[in-house]
């Protein structure tokens, strides 16, 4: 079993309130914010690792490869996934500004052709642009089955199919995909028992959330390979199809009001908010 996970670095999402808009609204300014792994991509790494484990031990022969597109510094973010347990990294260098969802998806398709993974797992979207395109465009480009916003993944015992749970209005839809396939994951995928592979005992529960990388793994990650090559080496058209025409900050929130009681609340909802 070989799993490819894609990773994007985003400006520190915990300090999103420090993001500024450049004068004239030409672009978003994230100066001074530490680039961190997109949280949904971290969940994708966690998902991949759980699929290649028997509880706390790795299944021999299974591998997790992490690919990223961006400046050389993105190697730091890849290494973080290696410290979590991924086996190797691929970094295709380019400017952060020279990428869009379409290009990343087409470039990833080339990576898939070369790496031949059984499964590609991505975060459902990056928390900076919130574009939510790469998994869908990648699956279309490859002609592979896909399931987006996975909240649960079950790998069959014969490793030929995955059954993906997706939260929809009123319940959960389960889709069974024949591998190779593309999955994008949502927040609930890192729940204690959201990922199952018919190897890890059913009683085994993971800790909620992506795992902590202990110091020995951090040290070991330094010796794991990260292959670096220019994005252009993949032979994709590097032209951008997505154009941003302007940015503006949302209007500052106004202070709320305090209501006396339920009757007052209903009255306000009817007269002021016109919600009833």
């Amino acid at each position, binding site marked *: 079993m070989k799993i490819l996970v894609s990773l994007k670095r985003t400006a520190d999402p915990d300090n999103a309130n420090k993001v500024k808009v450049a004068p004239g609204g030409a672009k978003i300014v994230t100066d001074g914010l530490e680039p961190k792994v997109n949280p949904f991509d971290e969940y994708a790494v966690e998902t991949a690792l759980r699929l290649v484990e028997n509880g706390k031990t790795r299944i021999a022969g299974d591998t997790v490869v992490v690919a990223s597109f961006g400046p050389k510094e993105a190697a730091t973010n890849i290494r973080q996934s290696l*410290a979590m347990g991924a086996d190797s990294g691929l970094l295709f260098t380019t400017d952060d500004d020279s990428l869009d969802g379409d290009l990343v998806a087409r470039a990833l398709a080339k990576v898939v052709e070369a790496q031949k993974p059984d499964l590609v797992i991505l975060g459902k979207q990056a928390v900076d642009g919130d574009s939510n395109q790469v998994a869908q465009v990648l699956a279309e480009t490859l002609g592979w089955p896909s399931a987006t916003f996975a909240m649960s993944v079950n790998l069959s015992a014969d490793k030929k199919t995955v059954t993906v749970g997706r939260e929809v209005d009123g319940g959960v839809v389960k889709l069974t995909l024949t591998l190779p396939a593309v999955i994008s994951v949502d927040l609930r995928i890192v729940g204690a028992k959201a990922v199952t592979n018919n190897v890890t005992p059913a009683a085994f529960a993971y800790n909620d*959330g992506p795992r*902590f*990388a*202990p*110091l020995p793994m*951090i*040290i070991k990650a330094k010796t794991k390979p990260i292959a670096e090559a220019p994005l252009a080496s993949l032979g994709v058209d590097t032209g951008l199809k997505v154009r941003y025409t302007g940015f503006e900050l949302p209007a500052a929130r106004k202070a709320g009001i305090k209501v006396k009681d339920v009757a007052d609340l209903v009255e306000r909802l009817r007269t002021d908010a016109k919600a009833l």
Partner: protein
Amino acid sequence: MQSYLFETEEHSALRAQVRRFAAREIAPHANEWEEAEEFPRDLYARAAEAGVLGVGYPESYGGGGGDLSHVVVACEEMILAGRSVGTCVGLGSHGIAIPPILRVGTEAQRQRFAAPVIRGEKISALAITEPGGGSDVANLRTRAERDGDHYVINGSKTFITSGVRADLVTVAVRTGGPGHGGLSLIVVERGTEGFSVGRKLKKMGWWASDTAELVFENCRVPAANLIGDENAGFIAIVMNFAIERVFLAAQCVAIATLAYQESIAYARERQAFGKSLTGFQVVRHKLAEMATRIAAARALTGEVVTRCLRDGDGPALAGLAAMAKNTATDACSFVCDEAVQVHGGYGYMREYLVERLYRDARLYPIGGGTREIMNEIVCKTEGY
């Protein structure tokens, strides 16, 4: 930049992990645990599981590897992101209790006493200070008399961090004659007959960590629990002190940094006379002075760490570690005092973090060797 000069990408990766642990597991409960004067016992296991507790300990005993530099940055993130100094120091009491066991204990003792603590299964404490004397270590009075294959211990210890809940205590005892040549270290386990917790002490700060008075009355401990050779305990105690002082200096740098960050945030937000506090030069200069003292303390603390890693933690380190501790404790006391001042009336209120940090800070010129003892050490190493 809030980091040490010795840091590498590895340290920043470790910081990120510890920060995430502390922000998730400690910060949401910080006030509650400080007010309750206790944190849940299972935090030890969770910290071990996340790889936080074992930083700096060999992997062969369940630790996470790494050295003093890793312990220092992990400790800093625990305080910055956890926002409860009491919890961090309680959780970290093994940092002084376990090193002597690893340093001079036998392999069997390391596996039996140290490993379960590093795995977060047991709580450990170090007991040196006595009601009758703290600084004067060479004259401590708790006696351990050899009786066949046991020692019979009589005496008491006080100000013992984590002592109330400790499963095992590394105790300094007198096995020989007067002076430093008659001291030994011995591990006393909870439940040993004659060993009891006298009382849980009420403190000015560090509320979330329990502090105990321990009593030994004809307490029979197997001779196999003696750590190192009989009457050779003083050197182990002293070596341990030097490292403890580096930890304490690093805690001071972290606490001061936290108080400084809180002050900047408050000064930016708080309005007076039609502008924010940062609009007043008098406040900006206060902040600048705080930042400068922290930078100086961080530089010296970092130098001790670097020298320790380069030259080993021999006697030459003791003087510099003492200087670093005094520099960092002074910086911390100054910064926390100014932080309360910047916060004005709110700084005096329990609901504000700086009020608590101010109380926590007062421990440091006393614990782990007083400021005055530090100066005595400097005098000795300087040769006058």
